[in-house]
């Protein structure tokens, strides 16, 4: 059996601004691979992520750090960062069509450890000045909460159609 185990899959086929996926993380795994395959959206600017508990409630405020770099097809490279924020900003895009992202999460449900995130995403960006974004991101959440899942939300508009798969990386 593969050490990469599918934990859960979600398919979103109707527009929503906030999507919450619980029962992704447990003490069975310490490291997770999350694949998001986005097909349609009306969200603009960015999709933000937080960790949630079993009830889907956000874990932590002013505890999320991140940094990203955007490699753009029509412009110079851009970057951004946030220290002690309320979310990770990982996927940037603007309307119509988006793309995909792969995350690795470390320790989201491991006792007594911070959670760490690293991701790559590839998206169409519907602005003539940019067109395409390759976004590389890192982040952590500076508390030792045991998380159950993720909340994703567009900071404008909705996410309309995507698949999220969460895999645990088994360590024997």
């Amino acid at each position: 059996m593969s050490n990469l185990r599918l934990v859960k899959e979600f398919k979103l086929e109707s527009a929503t601004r906030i999507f919450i996926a619980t029962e992704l993380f447990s003490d069975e795994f310490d490291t997770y691979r999350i694949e998001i395959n986005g097909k349609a959206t009306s969200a603009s600017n960015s999709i933000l992520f937080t960790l949630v508990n079993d009830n889907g409630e956000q874990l932590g405020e002013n505890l999320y750090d991140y940094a990203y770099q955007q490699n753009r097809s029509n412009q110079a490279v851009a970057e951004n960062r946030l220290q002690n924020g309320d979310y990770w900003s990982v996927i940037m895009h603007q309307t119509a069509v988006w793309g995909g992202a792969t995350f690795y999460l470390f320790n989201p449900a491991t006792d007594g450890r911070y959670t760490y995130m690293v991701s790559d995403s590839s998206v169409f960006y519907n602005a003539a000045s940019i067109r395409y974004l390759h976004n590389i991101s890192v982040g952590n959440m500076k508390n030792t909460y045991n998380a159950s899942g993720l909340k994703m939300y567009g900071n404008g508009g909705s996410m309309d159609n995507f698949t999220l798969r969460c895999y645990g990386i088994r360590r024997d």
Partner: protein
Amino acid sequence: MKLRQVDKATASSSATLAVNGIDNDSVYMVVVRDLHPSNDNQNLYVRVNVSSTAKSDAFYQESGEFLDSTTTNGDKHNLNGTSFVAHIAIGNAGVESANGIYMLYNFNDSGSYSNITFQNTDSTYNNAVVGYKAGGYRNKNESNNGLTWFFNTGNIEYGEVTLYEIVQ
């Protein structure tokens, strides 16, 4: 993608940590999780192994981008180094640690260079999250069967590394 666990090493106030067992031409993946230094503000170095012994000669080449939650991102280049400098300025306050996913290419082939990519996310001594998105290679034709980690001073107090083969 399917993974087969090849080796695992768990630190306990360890000077070095190593995984071995690369013995075919598959692509391999390493999960680095929770490596915590005994001393503050430590770089975490990585060397390739030949017959399970770390190589310290100056054949390590790398370049990449540091992403930093507190300041401008930075490029990094390392030519003819004696190791890969894979994680920078790791803190030892609380549960700060080094974490990452490495992909290993051509490690087993004695007639080509071993290549590596890094996707790292770490807590630094100044309470930032810093990532390293990078790649490197060792410009020496040799067969490498694993990797060895060490901080520039002190020990790896805890944490673990796991080596997987990506199988069909």
